[in-house]
């Protein structure tokens, strides 16, 4: 038991990676064994990450030096060497949400992808995406972050192009991989600048000796814009609708969490690496402006879409704007102690809570869209209609997701949105009013989807549509259960998960002190 906790960071990355390489061998023995193997490996990873998170939330940052004789030997002789994995409360929160969504998507895709071929590669790549996400959030080393970022973009790009019968998925995947490769190369350039000056690669060690010269500012700009590109902030958002729209539905639900992992990297660089810079509030204001643009442009472009998955992809851009707005307000007032304690902390907590809530309700909405596509075979909203008669459980889950994304009580969207509204209002009322307006437009566009797809009389061409299989209903049901749970008891989530994460982001000295 303590073996798992002590070697937890490395085990959590290694287990899905080795399982991914073993999947094509195991799938020789049959399809059922392959799916069972994937689900069991992801469940084992979830157990490891849960135990690691409970330990980190109770006793502080856990550090792991790869290749050392004991795991906590990060600086033998006073100089930090070796690749260091460093797990604090924020990493634990992101790791939990990554593995949970990956496990639920794997359960869902046992039924959804049944009639396609090449499924051994699908499950291998899904396990590799999980490993790369965990590597990205658990690492404490900048070059290691670049390696896992590239691994993430390669494996998710391969899955975006899974349907090879049409040309559009390959085009979407080409655009996605070009954009991701360019962004990651800019990250590597920034790492080169930092390494050239200080001869260090660990984030904690760099934060201790950084002197914020002009080259450091160039490196900051490169890092921030590359990570904003990967998470889909406007005006760098144009790949999101293509990639999310043409990927298979389970892969889209995982791509949402991949974007949140890049958001984590953005916060880690701004708060922990450059947190002591005197003019960091410029980056905070940049995040606020990106957030406002994303919210507004995302939702207005979503209202005019005809394709159900592209519509939900634009809503993902819009909700990312909420997270950027919340954390940007916190970063903009980070120097002012009074404002930080009164509303800055709540703004950061609202933004981080929104990350978890968004992964859950966006995953649920994409899975219900997948249920519609599975039964009717079409994605066009103009052709759908009257499905609520035949699929009542899916309709119920869609209503839960729709009310949650619009921010209506008592679901979890409201809990995080009210934290963002009230704290941003104390910073600047105009931003809060724009946020509320975007919420109303979100509800309007989802009412349009609900009316087109579910309401209305039964149509002739869908008369033998039944309810979806049980595995898909289980995955959607678990997500809906957690949405209602976080909506009815939000203070438990905030007290046990979000507040430690926000404190860990702001507490730079704790992160640095474990390394040197």
């Amino acid at each position, binding site marked *: 038991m303590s073996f798992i906790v002590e070697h937890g960071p490395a085990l959590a990355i290694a287990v899905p990676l080795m399982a991914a390489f073993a999947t094509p061998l195991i799938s020789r023995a049959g399809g059922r064994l392959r799916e069972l193997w994937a689900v069991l490996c992801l469940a084992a990873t979830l157990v490891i990450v849960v135990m690691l998170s409970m330990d980190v939330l109770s006793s502080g940052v856990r550090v792991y030096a790869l290749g050392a004789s004991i795991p906590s030997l990060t600086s033998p002789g006073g100089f930090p060497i070796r690749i260091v994995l460093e797990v604090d409360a924020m990493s634990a929160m992101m790791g939990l949400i990554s593995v949970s969504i990956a496990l639920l998507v794997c359960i869902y895709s046992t039924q959804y992808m049944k009639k396609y071929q090449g499924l051994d590669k699908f499950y291998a790549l899904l396990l590799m995406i999980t490993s790369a996400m965990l590597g990205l959030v658990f690492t404490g080393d900048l070059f290691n972050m670049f390696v896992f970022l590239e691994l993430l973009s390669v494996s998710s790009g391969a899955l975006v192009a899974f349907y090879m019968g*049409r040309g*559009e998925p390959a085009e979407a995947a080409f655009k996605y991989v*070009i954009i991701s490769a360019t962004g990651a190369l800019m990250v590597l350039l920034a790492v*080169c600048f930092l*390494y050239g000056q200080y*001869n260090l690669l660990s984030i904690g060690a760099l934060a201790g000796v950084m002197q914020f010269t002009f080259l450091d500012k160039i490196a900051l700009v490169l890092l921030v814009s590359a990570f904003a590109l990967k998470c889909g902030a406007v005006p760098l958002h144009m790949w999101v609708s293509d990639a999310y729209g043409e990927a298979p539905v389970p892969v889209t639900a995982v791509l949402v969490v991949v974007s949140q992992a890049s958001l984590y990297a953005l916060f880690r660089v701004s708060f922990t690496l450059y947190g002591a810079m005197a003019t960091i509030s410029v980056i905070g204001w940049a995040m606020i402006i990106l957030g406002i643009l994303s919210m507004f442009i995302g939702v207005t472009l979503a209202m005019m879409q005809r394709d159900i998955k592209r519509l939900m992809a634009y809503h993902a851009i819009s909700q990312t704007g909420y997270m950027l707005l919340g954390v940007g307000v916190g970063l903009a007032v980070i120097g002012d102690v009074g404002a930080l304690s009164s509303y800055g902390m709540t703004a950061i907590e609202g933004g981080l809570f929104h990350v978890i809530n968004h992964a859950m309700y966006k995953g649920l909405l994409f899975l219900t869209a997948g249920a519609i596509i599975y039964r009717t075979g079409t994605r066009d909203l103009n052709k759908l209609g009257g499905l609520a008669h035949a699929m009542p459980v899916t309709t119920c889950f869609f209503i839960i997701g729709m009310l949650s994304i619009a921010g209506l009580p008592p679901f979890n969207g409201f809990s995080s949105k009210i934290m963002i509204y009230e704290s941003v209002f104390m910073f600047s009322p105009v931003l809060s009013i724009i946020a509320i307006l975007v919420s109303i437009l979100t509800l309007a566009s989802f009412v349009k989807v609900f009316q087109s797809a579910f309401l209305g009389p039964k149509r002739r061409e869908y008369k033998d549509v039944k309810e979806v299989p049980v595995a898909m209903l289980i995955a959607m049901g678990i997500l809906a259960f957690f949405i209602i749970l976080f909506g009815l008891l939000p203070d438990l989530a905030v007290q046990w998960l979000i507040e430690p994460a926000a404190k860990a982001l702001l507490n730079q000295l704790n992160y640095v002190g474990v390394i040197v």
Partner: protein
Amino acid sequence: MISLPFLAVMVIISIGLSAVIFRRNLVKIVMGTSIIASAINLFLVSLGYREGGVAPIFTGAPRLEMVLPTPQALTLTSIVIDLAVTAMMLSFAIIIYRHYGSLDSRKRRLRE
């Protein structure tokens, strides 16, 4: 004054970025990405140079000053990653050509 390798790196990165932004052929866009990656590999290797140092692989070394070995390890990792990404992008270009019949980036079906 900026030393020559760093200046060359900046020039090659701008050449690569302009290839990605201004070229229409999909294969040339992939080549642009590869050029940027080569420039950054050059930057990494040239960061480790120390004046008058020998290669860091000796047991009984002729001198004690050696060039830094860490950037060489980083460069090897980066070369391998760039190889995998380029291979994947070129295979996507082949699939696009098989379905659409052209490699022009302006002849696209997914817009807005």
